[in-house]
């Protein structure tokens, strides 16, 4: 499974990378903002994207809108501190497939990933 981690915090990317490695997914690419992530899309062709919201340069929502407007349907899980219901709705309307609020446990992230991939495959 090719996964793209997009988060301006290297520490958060490391935490997510360790969880993904525990699931046996080690083909992981990282980006520190939305603009970097867009550059990774063509070369990496991820099958899943874990996406932070608040980032410098280009935030997660703008990245998501650009991704979907380009016709890319890769499943995206927003992984963010943005916890308001209105933010969840905004993200889903922009094309997010699922939503995970930081902080999270390994089991919570694993469950959210499996749920997202199952829905996407259906």
């Amino acid at each position, binding site marked *: 499974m090719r996964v793209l981690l997009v988060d*301006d*915090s*290297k*520490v*958060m990317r*490391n*935490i997510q990378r360790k969880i993904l490695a525990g699931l046996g997914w080690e083909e992981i690419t990282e980006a520190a903002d939305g603009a970097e992530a867009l550059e990774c899309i063509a070369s990496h062709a991820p099958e899943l994207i874990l996406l932070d919201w*608040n*980032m*410098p340069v280009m935030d997660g929502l703008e990245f998501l809108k650009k991704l979907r407007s380009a016709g890319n349907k890769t499943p995206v899980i927003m992984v*963010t*501190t*943005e*916890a*308001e219901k*209105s933010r969840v709705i905004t993200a889903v309307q922009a094309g997010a497939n699922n939503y995970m609020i*930081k*902080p999270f*446990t390994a089991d919570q992230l694993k469950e959210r990933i499996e749920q997202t991939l199952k829905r996407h495959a259906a």
Partner: protein
Amino acid sequence: MRDHAFESEFVAAMHEALSFILASVGVQNVQATATRARTSGDRWNEVTGIITYSGDIAGAVALTAPLATANAMVHALAGEMLSHESEDYTDAFGELVNMICGRTKAALRGENSISVPTVVIGDCTGRAAGLEGPTTVVLCESGLGPFAVEFAIRVRAAGLASSAKGAA
């Protein structure tokens, strides 16, 4: 103008967020021991993480901790000891502040946004922290040691001033 009802709401939301986020990384017994106005004689701790709020409220929040407490907090999140001179250290401390301020924001009324965090190691000033105007200091104790939250937030939306949760 200070809005004391809103400040009470903000302190309650911040305390809940501190307890929840720090507990999630294994830090127990987070207690606010005193809340008071900042004075000119107050000193900053060695590590300070700052986030600004904009929207229906505006201002800044700083989580400031002595080096020993900050080291332990960073270790709790990152799962490893990091040098306070490394980028990963400021990254981890900033992420903690980000999670705390994000959760606080979600508990407040209105539409608000938070900035990406800034972390200052060493001397900080109210101006550097974006704390302009009357500043409230919440002194805290935790299983990892003492720290403080300082904030200077003003209400911009008229509807929020009189409708703070818990206001009489």
